[in-house]
């Protein structure tokens, strides 16, 4: 357990409304990530962070923004939600595993439905 929580776990929202998803970690990891998972596409990186206020885009960043004002929190915002953003969103961190290598650990996920 890498101490990662996501909130909310489920959300239904209407097209055009802003939505913010929160990822919280308790172990002071530097690297944090947001992925979306859709059938047939696997896991795709939206944005990631390599420190407080240091973020960068992933492969599917259009329509999403992120912020990280504290080490423990990484927020994902959908400025104006669209139906194509209906997905399961996973937060992840990179930590050092038992063998000393860098591994990614995932949060439980947030299921977002945009109607």
């Amino acid at each position, binding site marked *: 357990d890498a101490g990662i929580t996501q909130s909310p776990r489920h959300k239904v929202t209407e097209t055009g409304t802003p939505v913010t998803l929160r990822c919280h970690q308790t172990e002071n990891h530097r690297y944090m990530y947001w992925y979306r998972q859709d059938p047939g*596409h*696997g896991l795709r990186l939206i944005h*990631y962070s*390599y420190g407080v206020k240091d973020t960068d885009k992933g492969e599917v960043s259009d329509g999403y923004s992120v912020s990280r004002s504290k080490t423990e929190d990484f927020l994902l915002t959908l400025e104006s939600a669209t139906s194509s953003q209906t997905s399961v969103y996973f937060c992840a961190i990179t930590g050092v*595993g038992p063998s000393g290598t860098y591994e*990614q*650990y995932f*949060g439980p996920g947030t299921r977002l439905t945009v109607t």
Partner: protein
Amino acid sequence: QQPVQSPQAVILREGEDAVINCSSSKALYSVHWYRQKHGEAPVFLMILLKGGEQKGHEKISASFNEKKQQSSLYLTASQLSYSGTYFCGRVGGGSNYKLTFGKGTLLTVNP
């Protein structure tokens, strides 16, 4: 660009073996393997760091051919608990530990 996994799906009987392949058109510096059970988060299985290196996790092992930019996951004497979707993740250059995942291979183990 996402690594390409094959096969997309495989069905086994308990005790049978399976191989899942992962290939990349871009340079592979390391490969991660994850397993995801339905409705759950992906879970780390192993990381391959060097060309030709093999690693193991229970009866699951993997190889990494840096030259061919390929990795393979070997599941031996499969158990019902091995069912799930397996993802490989490619790490390219740079130091931000950014993973690009394949689309996954759905493995079903039946009694």
